[in-house]
């Protein structure tokens, strides 16, 4: 299997909605730390959390998260 890079658009989507990490965390029902680690690519969320985030931003999961092959 090749190397993959997991990217996300959470920071961009947050900026578009003009909300902080803390506010997004409260809306989704997680801690700010969780949003921060996902945003910085340190933590890959579960499918459930990924869908919840995508639904909140009203976009598709694959628009919010992407897997880039190196």
């Amino acid at each position, binding site marked *: 299997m090749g190397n993959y890079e997991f990217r996300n658009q959470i920071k961009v989507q947050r900026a578009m909605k003009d909300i902080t990490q*803390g506010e997004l*965390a*409260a809306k989704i*029902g997680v801690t700010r730390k969780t949003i921060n680690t996902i945003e910085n690519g340190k933590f890959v969320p579960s499918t459930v*959390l990924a869908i919840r985030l995508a639904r909140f931003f009203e976009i598709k999961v694959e628009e919010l998260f992407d897997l880039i092959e190196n």
Partner: protein
Amino acid sequence: MDSTIIEKLDKSRYEAMKWFTFGWILWFCGFIIKDFINNNFILGLILLIGLFGWVFYTVNLIRIVKLGKIINADEKLRNALNNELHQLYMYKSVFWGFKIVIAIICVFLGISSFYNISSLLVCEITLLFGVSSFLIAGLVYNKD
């Protein structure tokens, strides 16, 4: 749900865990060392430090239990605070504790080839390192 409540409780829980760990290490180190000290002054000092650690341990254990009650009373709050990242960090911390326990047992097995060691001492040291490494790993993972 208010984000400030989640963050406040998360920070309180981290702080309580930090001082609980500090107290546990002080108390249990004193508890182990006291059996090897003959000098009354040093023994008194170690017992005092151990008592100091025990106070930290007990006070923060009560804080953790109280926080647990607040968190468990609200399902949304509980799910937010014990979310998948928190659980992942907890599994990782438990794994660290397990690895340390295995390593300590291997070290004692090696030492036992040359010296006779008290089984009580082996248990105490394994418990100290196992629990401490689990707690410290949890603090490191959960650090902002």
